[in-house]
């Protein structure tokens, strides 16, 4: 997605700043190279196909996170909003409400959490970090209440087909994730709302001063992130065949990590949809490669955390 960078000097610029800007693509290349050398199973059509399917879920979440980070916020509630939306889908489906209604309710459930976050942060001026940390806990409790802590199986042929099939070699998950990324890019770079999102994150006083309704804009960002959780939950249920209320809190860190790796500033006002997509792919490749190499699951959080810390370190050189 085109950024608002002015054309730089011609020629190759191997400065630290340039390295920082392209951290995610460079990292992705390095990870691919390492795993390609380490195992013949990595760069196969079927593995890459599966890798991209897993990455799709993270990508959708990261796109929501991207919008919140753009307005200088952070959404920690995605960690429990995804299982919550998934549980609502499972609950509605097993209650016999039909797939369409159930999916609609799951999207609404995710959206509702985002709207509540947005209202608390924007209208009541509460600290984003605390608000979404609180709702992370509240929503995980709601999920446990709804499911009594049990996994809810969802046996839907449609969802199964969504996870497995596609148009030729192009899987449906990729299409969905691609559409979400394009929509977010379109919103940010081609619409007024996108300009206001970037302005609100870049300088909230200045944005308010020119008459932008910054509270409404922040609400839109959090609501979008909630909706993204709903979409990701549908994909998640389709892929795993059920809603597990206790799983997938690592998606929270990964969604933030993807945005940071992509070069967006956590201080807001700078967004890179392309960077975030690359960041999500990088993280998913790491996890995928580790699994292929049979490296203990316990090393995965260490690796992901190290990459995030590295990205945070590099971003110090970004100005």
């Amino acid at each position: 997605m085109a950024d608002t960078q002015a054309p730089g000097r011609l020629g190759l610029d191997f400065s630290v700043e340039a390295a920082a800007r392209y951290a995610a693509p460079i990292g992705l290349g390095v990870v691919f190279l390492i795993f390609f050398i380490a195992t013949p199973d990595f760069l196969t059509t079927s593995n890459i196909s599966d890798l991209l399917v897993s990455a799709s879920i993270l990508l959708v979440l990261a796109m929501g996170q991207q919008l919140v980070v753009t307005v200088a916020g952070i959404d920690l509630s995605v960690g429990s909003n995804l299982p919550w939306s998934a549980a609502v889908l499972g609950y509605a489906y097993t209650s016999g409400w039909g797939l369409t209604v159930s999916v609609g309710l799951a999207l609404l459930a995710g959206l509702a959490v985002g709207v509540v976050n947005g209202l608390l942060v924007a209208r009541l001026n509460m600290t984003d970090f605390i608000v979404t940390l609180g709702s992370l806990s509240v929503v995980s409790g709601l999920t446990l209440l709804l499911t009594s802590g049990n996994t809810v199986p969802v046996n839907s042929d449609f969802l199964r087909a969504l996870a497995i099939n596609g148009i030729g070699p192009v899987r449906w998950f990729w299409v969905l994730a691609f559409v979400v990324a394009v929509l977010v890019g379109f919103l940010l770079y081609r619409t007024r709302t996108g300009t206001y999102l970037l302005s609100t994150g870049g300088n909230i006083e200045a944005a308010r001063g020119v008459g932008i309704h910054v509270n409404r804009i922040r609400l839109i960002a959090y609501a979008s992130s909630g909706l993204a959780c709903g979409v990701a939950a549908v994909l998640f249920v389709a892929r795993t065949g059920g809603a597990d209320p206790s799983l997938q809190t690592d998606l929270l860190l990964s969604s933030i990590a993807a945005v940071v790796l992509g070069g967006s500033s956590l201080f807001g006002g700078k967004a890179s949809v392309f960077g975030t997509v690359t960041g999500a792919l990088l993280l998913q490749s790491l996890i995928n490669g580790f699994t292929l190499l049979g490296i203990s699951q316990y090393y995965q959080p260490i690796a992901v955390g190290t990459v995030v810390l590295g990205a945070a370190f590099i971003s110090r050189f970004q100005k």
Partner: protein
Amino acid sequence: MTDTPARMTGTSSAAPAATQSGASASQVVSPLVEITGLRKSFGAVQALQGVDLKLAPGEVTALLGDNGAGKSTLVRCLTGVHPQDAGEIRFRGEQVRFHSPDDARQLGIETVYQTLGLIEDLPVWQNLYLNHELTSGFGPFRVLDKKSMIAQSSDILSRLDVNVPNVRATVRRMSGGQRQCIAIARAANWGRTLVIMDEPTAALGVRETAAVEELIARLREASVTVLLISHDMAQVLRVADTAYVLRRGQTAARRTISATTGDELVGLITGAVQGDAHA
């Protein structure tokens, strides 16, 4: 919702639409803006303690005062950034209550804040069109018309003697003077009724300052009212019709420029010359 338009209440019976009647007739023409008894505190700090001020339509009014006198606070109350604690603001004779700067903007009021109000990571053209974006398409499918905005940005800037080689560059890359010119050009371009400038030439060179003064004169010719905050007495004497002096959050004096001197104004600002409050 915060986006309710400025609520117009109160008496509006005697508000003749006398606007384009020249500068010198300020006493008989009803003011564009009339502020009475305006108060604003920040905790224990009483920034404004009863300010009275009238802006005659089509005139350039200077607002003078020492640092901390409350000039910027007055501007922010007038543009809807802060709600005032007490007092009233009338616009064209009608009492207005601005809930957000958008309300002021919809009445054609544009402001150059002392902090400039630019978004550093957005390109110059996007700052010039901020909240005035051109779009193509219709309904929810309206898309930013980048091409037109970029093309016309140079025109907006050309009114000022400012050299911005590339309007696609971000404001972060601009010098202090360039930034100030961008903020001024933006306000002058969109201001239809009132343009407020809070120390607009503080970071500018001689040539750029002259261009800004020329721009103020052009706004005046176009019957746009200007409120200018400046510490430069020579500049005030050159461009303004009327001057108000604020001292410790109160209106200390009002002077017609043709009937005062720089020395008197400086004396009024420092308190060496006794003011005549509620002038």
